[in-house]
């Protein structure tokens, strides 16, 4: 290569160029979805309701639906008209004219007409309809007109069906439902979901459960973590082996460790439940997973088992950075072990402890896998955290707008917790970067 490449980039430009792909990806795949979540939470989106599967900011028509259902309606009315006689025939003829007029009025717009053609062709070839073709925006009045026509048609058809004037009355319901679902209304609901959750006792219970789980498990993990770190910090044989064992719970996938514990807690065959019963900790083996307090305890114990190693390792690494001379000086001055711990170890560990607490608190607050697999949030929602509630709202009820509002709440809580910790930690976390 050309050694003194004059055209080459400066260090600064090179730096930005190297960082650009990572930043772009993070922006598109992480930051944009969070903002989008917030946007979705302002809309009534339900994946099980065809008219509400997306954000619709204005009135409009789902052309794919319309194109595939309008001919059915027309065909149905025509057939019925052919079969009917007397006043019924006239009525059906009137309906036919009305819906054909409605269709013509719609197709007066050249754009809609051409889209109609294009979509019809695609449907004929069994090809997917691209999104940009699918939806047309209509004015509120135009939508109202269509809706009124369809509503009138429907009531007339149903009435005629009830009066036995139709050959196939049951067909009317289907074709009408099909075409009505093509009408799209704006599904913007503003902060309605947030307002709803403010008074939703299930949300407050979930929030309480989340905080309770987070605080209790993180405190236990911190205390145990410090104890283990002190234990493995002294010289002894087999230190490497102990450190490796400690890593195993960390490496096991969370859901698999949750399944393991579910088996250990099992009301009939669980060894841990059995041991607890034998030692009198619980009155009955079933208590662990089938009572509210028992389930919360079980979840916390499983979490402590899984994540204390991480805490211990961070603190252990922190311990190793404390200069040995400090302890020697302290012994010379006559400080006992207790004093050494509180005057030297803890203060020197402060920033490590805070970092470990930050990571663990956030992880615990976001808890999902463990509870999903171990209790599913039960019994009676007693272990349901905000993330689980959000998941259930989204994927069991298919109410994405509502679920997203809960997800945004999780995000806000996490953001507040991080800001709190970072205030205490200061710029320490990112610190080293300023050196250069």
């Amino acid at each position: 290569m050309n050694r003194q490449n004059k055209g080459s980039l400066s260090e600064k430009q090179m730096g930005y160029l190297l960082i650009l792909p990572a930043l772009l990806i993070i922006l598109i795949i992480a930051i944009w979805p969070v903002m989008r979540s917030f946007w979705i939470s302002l809309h009534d989106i339900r994946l099980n309701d065809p008219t509400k599967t997306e954000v619709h900011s204005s009135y409009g028509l789902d052309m794919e639906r319309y194109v595939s259902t309008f001919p059915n309606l027309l065909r149905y009315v025509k057939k019925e008209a052919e079969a009917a006689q007397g006043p019924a025939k006239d009525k059906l003829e009137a309906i036919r004219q009305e819906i054909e007029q409605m269709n013509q009025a719609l197709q007066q717009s050249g754009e809609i007409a051409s889209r109609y053609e294009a979509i019809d062709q695609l449907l004929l070839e069994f090809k997917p309809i691209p999104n940009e073709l699918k939806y047309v925006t209509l004015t509120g009045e135009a939508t109202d007109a269509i809706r009124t026509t369809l509503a009138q048609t429907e009531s007339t058809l149903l009435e005629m069906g009830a009066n036995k004037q139709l050959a196939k009355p049951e067909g009317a319901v289907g074709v009408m439902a099909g075409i009505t679902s093509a009408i799209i209304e704006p599904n913007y609901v503003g902060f309605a979901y947030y307002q709803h959750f403010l008074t939703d006792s299930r949300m407050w219970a979930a929030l309480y459960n989340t905080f309770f789980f987070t605080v209790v498990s993180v405190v236990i993990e911190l205390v145990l973590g410090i104890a283990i770190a002190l234990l493995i910090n002294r010289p002894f044989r087999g230190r490497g082996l102990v450190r490796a064992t400690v890593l195993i719970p960390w490496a096991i996938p969370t859901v698999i460790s949750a399944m393991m514990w579910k088996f250990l807690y099992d009301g009939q065959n669980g060894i841990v439940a059995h041991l607890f019963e034998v030692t009198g900790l619980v009155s009955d083996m079933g208590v662990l997973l089938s009572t509210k307090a028992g389930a919360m305890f079980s979840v916390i114990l499983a979490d402590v088992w899984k994540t204390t190693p991480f805490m211990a390792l961070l603190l252990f690494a922190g311990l190793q950075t404390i200069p040995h001379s400090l302890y020697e000086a302290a012994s010379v001055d006559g400080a006992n072990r207790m004093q050494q711990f509180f005057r030297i170890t803890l203060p020197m560990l402060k920033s490590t402890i805070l970092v470990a607490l930050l990571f663990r608190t956030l992880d615990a607050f976001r808890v999902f896998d463990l509870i999903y697999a171990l209790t599913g949030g039960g019994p009676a929602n007693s272990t349901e955290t905000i993330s689980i509630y959000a998941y259930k709202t989204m994927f069991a009820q298919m109410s994405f707008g509502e679920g997203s509002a809960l997800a945004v709440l999780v995000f806000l809580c996490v953001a507040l917790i991080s800001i709190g910790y970072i205030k205490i930690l200061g710029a320490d976390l990112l610190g080293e970067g300023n050196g250069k």
Partner: protein
Amino acid sequence: MQKKAGPLFYIGLLLFVFVVMFPFLWILLAALKPPGELFGERAFQFIIQNPTLDNFVRVFTERPFARYLWNSTVVATLTTLYSITIASFAAYAIAWLSFRGKTIILGIVLAVSMFPQIATISPIFMFMQSMGLTNSYLGLIIPYTTFALPLAIWNLTIFFRKIPSDLGEAAKVDGASIWQTMTRVFFPLAMPGVFTTAILVFIAAWNEFLFALTLNTQEAMKTVPVGIVMFQGMFTIPWGEISAASIIVTVPLVVMVLIFQRRIISGLTSGAVKE
């Protein structure tokens, strides 16, 4: 403080190791037990009368477990490769080149790594569904970036900072371009850090649950964690098979942890501790 360890210490230590390992060991026993010993009278026995490998066989013959393993391997490997590549460039720039805004960039990376997954799932799910990417490998690899890339950038930056930058200066004096410095001088030195980070990213991707649960719902496209959780039927939970499957997944991880424990520990802790 640093007293020599006595016998009491070792007994305590042994007890501690036993407690930590117990769930894992018990699951190993459960995997080897025939149904008759898994439930009922012998449910709490440590000694297995008729050990059997049936559970392990059934996991592969009666369930698409091999397929789950393959799916997880593909997704975790590709996620690791691609995020490490992109992160290496970014981390190199942050650690070795001088330009403005590095602290802010690191701050963004750290903030994104703290994002709760649940807060990104609804738009990602709707996007993947509209693009027809649910039940595909790409449909998982893309969202896995949300945690893999920040994790990789953060760890690599910390590793790269430890490589003395005078080496870069020396290469510059010798007339090497930035690109040459990066590929010839820097990357060979950085390989251990890259390798450690790759292990961490791989484990994170292998263990991921929420995206895999919601995006890849077809039997043939499930990953291991989702597959195992879904073993349970409406009324029965096949504990023997779940235990066997858990052991199969966990053993490679345990071996990996035993071999690379030093690297993993340094990777896990280097961000939190100032040296």
